[in-house]
C-alpha cells in the first residue's frame, strides 16, 4: 500500500438530460442517472446504487486482504446488498445498509474463523467507516 493520504478523483459530465458520464484517467466510463424511484430513467447506475456498490466492493477487497493475511482458504465470496432510503427527522438518506456475503469454504472447521474474518472486514472497510449509516452484516457460509 502507498503511504497515506491517498487522493481519488472522479470527473462527471452531464447536460440537461437525466444521464451523465463518470470518468477518470485509465478507467472505463460509467453512465449514471437518477434511479426510477426518484423519477429517473432507471437504466443506469444511480448514485444510490454506486454507494451500495462502493460498500460491497470495499467489503470484498478488505475481506480478500484479511483472508490472505490470515491464510484462510476459500473458494468464492459473493455479496448481495440492500440499502434502505427513508426520511428520518426530515432528512431523506440511507437509514440502513445490509450486506449479505455468501462465502464458500472447503473446510468445515474454518467456519468460525471465516465468520470472525467477515466481521473484521465489515469493521475495517474504509468506505463503511466513512458513512454514518449503520451497516448490518448477514453472512452465510457454505461448505463444499
Amino acid at each position, binding site marked *: 500500500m502507498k503511504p497515506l493520504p491517498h487522493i481519488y478523483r472522479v470527473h462527471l459530465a452531464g447536460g440537461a438530460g437525466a444521464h451523465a458520464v463518470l470518468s477518470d484517467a485509465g478507467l472505463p466510463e460509467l453512465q449514471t442517472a437518477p434511479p426510477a424511484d426518484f423519477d429517473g430513467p432507471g437504466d443506469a447506475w444511480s448514485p444510490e446504487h454506486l454507494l451500495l456498490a462502493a460498500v460491497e466492493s470495499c467489503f470484498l477487497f*478488505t475481506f480478500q486482504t484479511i483472508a490472505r*493475511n*490470515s*491464510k484462510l482458504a476459500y473458494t468464492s465470496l459473493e455479496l448481495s446488498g440492500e440499502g434502505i432510503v427513508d426520511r428520518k427527522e426530515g432528512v431523506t438518506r440511507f437509514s440502513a445498509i445490509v450486506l449479505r456475503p455468501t462465502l464458500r469454504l472447503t473446510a468445515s472447521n474454518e467456519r468460525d*474463523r471465516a465468520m*470472525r474474518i467477515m466481521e473484521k472486514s465489515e*469493521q475495517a472497510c474504509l468506505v463503511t467507516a466513512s458513512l454514518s449509516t449503520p451497516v448490518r452484516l448477514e453472512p452465510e457460509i457454505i461448505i463444499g
Partner: protein
Amino acid sequence: MNERSFVRQVAERADCDERRAETLIFAVFQELRDRLTPKEASDAAAQLPMSLKMLWMSFDRPDRKVRRLHEGQFLREVARMAGVDDVNEAEVAVATVFAVLQEALGSSTGTEGEAWHVMSQLPTDLKQLWLSAGARA
C-alpha cells in the same frame, strides 16, 4: 528486526512453519493493537521497522474504540482469528508473539520504553501474560 526475522523467530519459538507464524502474528497484532488506544497503537508502530509497522497498523481506524478484552476473551479472539483449536495453544502463540514484539520494541523484559507503555494499557491478567512472555524468552 525486520518482518522476515520476526516471522522466523516466531516460527522457531512456536515450533511451526513460517506460514503458520504469519497467521499467528497477524491475529495477535490485530487483537493487541485493538486493545490499545489508537494513539498508543500509533506510538508503538513508530518504534517498529516499516514492514512490521504496516502489518501492525493494517485495518486500524483512528476513530475506533478500545476493545476492552480480558485475557480469556483476548485468547479466544486470537484463537478464532488464527484458527487455533484451543485456548492453551492460543496462549502459547500469544506469549511467543508478545516476546518477539517486545524485542522488536527494544525491550528484553517487556517493561522498558514503548513496551512499558503498551503493557500499561493492558488489564492485569494480560499484563501478567505480557510479563511472563518477556521472562520466558
